[in-house]
């Protein structure tokens, strides 16, 4: 990916005399064998640690998977049964007809994608204002942002609902989008990340005649890929797994999201746990896909080579 930052690095003499070789290359040119041997041992140790961790972290997920293949009355047994006695594969075919699962998935995806896009866009814009532009009242405003994160939603849920009702927005996706797309979380996250980007980069771009908007789009955004990826991932996951918001605002069944659909297996006195777990397994898949796509941005690293922070 070519971007302004790399151009800058190549052009601006004060940034770096010559393009720095990638860390990989440099490592290879230095004393090879002891380093590599050491690296290999470290790798083995790390793999070992990770393998143990993964097992410990996946146990509940395994239970979820195994329960999704049981009859409802076989799920919550004492003692716990790790492997189903009969594999009820039909849960995975039944769920599509028991509830309109496909429609729920579409609704969830629609909400999650729109909210994530808006949150990332407006969040990174506002974060630039909060971190790279200096103007009076900025920090107070920023504290107001952080402050609202500290208020539990349960406290202002009803005033918010009354407002939405008066605007005629309840029972629609718009209500949820408006509520969740402008959260303070994204602004805060991006602002903190932008703080780590040296101001010299912006300065250089200003000297080159870029406007503030140009700096945001062509210098800062390309540099903040890991942060953008994590914000997008976390926003997506939170929206996807949100239950209370859709529950309060979406009444018509055709607007329901996956999380609401799963809860419809909970009755007044009992619940169909096998179906809930089946649905949960299905609903995790989109998150995994997003994660696998997004996670490669975490290793790309940002192009500040040659910078003295």
């Amino acid at each position, binding site marked *: 990916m070519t971007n302004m930052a790399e151009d800058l690095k190549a052009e601006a003499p004060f940034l770096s005399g010559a393009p720095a070789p990638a860390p990989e290359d440099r490592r290879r040119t230095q004393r090879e064998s002891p380093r590599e041997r050491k690296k290999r041992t470290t790798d083995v140790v790390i793999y070992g640690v990770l393998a143990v961790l993964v097992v410990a972290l996946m146990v509940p997920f395994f239970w979820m998977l195994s329960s999704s293949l049981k009859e409802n009355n076989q799920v919550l047994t004492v003692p716990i049964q790790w492997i189903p006695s009969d594999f009820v594969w039909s849960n995975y075919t039944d769920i599509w007809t028991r509830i309109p699962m496909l429609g729920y998935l579409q609704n969830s995806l629609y909400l999650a994608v729109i909210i994530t896009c808006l949150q990332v866009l407006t969040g990174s*814009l506002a974060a630039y204002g909060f971190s790279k532009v200096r103007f009076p009242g*900025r920090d107070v405003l920023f504290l107001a942002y*952080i402050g609202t994160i*500290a208020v539990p939603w*349960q406290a202002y849920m009803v005033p918010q609902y009354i407002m939405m009702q008066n605007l005629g927005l309840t029972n629609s996706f718009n209500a949820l989008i408006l509520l969740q797309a402008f959260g*303070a979380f994204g602004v805060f996250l991006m602002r903190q990340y932008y703080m780590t*980007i040296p101001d010299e980069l912006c300065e250089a771009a200003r000297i080159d005649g870029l406007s503030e908007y140009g700096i945001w789009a062509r210098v800062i955004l390309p540099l903040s890929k890991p942060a953008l990826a994590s914000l997008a991932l*976390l926003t997506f996951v939170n929206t996807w797994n949100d239950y209370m918001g859709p529950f309060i605002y979406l009444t018509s069944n055709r607007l329901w999201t996956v999380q609401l659909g799963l809860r419809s297996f909970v009755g007044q006195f009992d619940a169909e746990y096998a179906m809930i777990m089946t649905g949960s397994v299905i609903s995790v898949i989109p998150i995994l896909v997003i994660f696998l796509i997004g996670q490669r941005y975490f290793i790309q690293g940002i192009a500040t080579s040659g910078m003295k922070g």
Partner: protein
Amino acid sequence: MTTETLTPAPVPVSRGNRKQARRNTLIGWTFILPNFLGFLAFTLIPVIAAFALSFMEWTSFTAPRWVGLENFQRMLQSDTFWVALRNTVVYALGHVPLTMALALGLAMLLNRKLKGIGFFRVAIFFPYITSLVAVAVVWNMLFSPDNGPINQFLNAIGIAEAPGWTSSSDWAMPAVIITSVWRDMGYYMILYLAGLQAIPTELYEAAEVDGASGWQRFWNVTIPSLRPTTFFVVVMLTVSSFKVFDLIVVMTNGGPGRATTVLSQLIYQEGIGEGKFGYSSAISLVLFLIVLSITVLQFKLQQRRER
């Protein structure tokens, strides 16, 4: 507080004449505005409305009635409020440092190029996306006092009186904390991973040339460079610890007795559960003030360090 004391020293753009300042204000606001409009209308105003309610009596059906500080007086006299406040603080004291340390450790472990590292990253994020019910059932099973694996292990290493975990008033909170740390560390690991990526490799290389050991590099390069991320993580963790709700509801539902009842549960029960919106708003105002003062403190600390 005045803005001046809070303002860090970002690079001054120019000589800072008045015209420049006005221009900066304009530019700053155009960046913030798209987010701020939505934030103002749908978050800030309802929040302010909720705070106003804490001085009123309101059942949501009738017009609110001004009662002054009555709600706060009731709250201070309520035994349950103090129990919930204490539980919330205990939870936060356990949850914040543990999650932070583990998240950072995992991020350091996973911030490298290794075959299949993507899989491990997903795996560590898994607890966060596993159904809460599954998490609660499995952890409760692990914590089972008589035959749970955790207590069997404790017995094996010579601890005869293993704790009763979720069926004991004293141990339910530690059990909840352990589960929540396990669940949340993957989430914060993602944030740290992004933060680690922002550290220029040259800083490490320079430190290496100076002969710094791995440990020294960690303290002198990694930790200072991660300061903005750490600030974010600490604030988010503090806030989310003080607001903890879902996990407790599913895992212990505040029990046994009131051993794990927390403030946000109280807010929910008193407000939407029983229709005492004024009273529940008063509790949330107190919760807000506590968290805000912690955050402002951290904000100031962070800025002092940055200078």
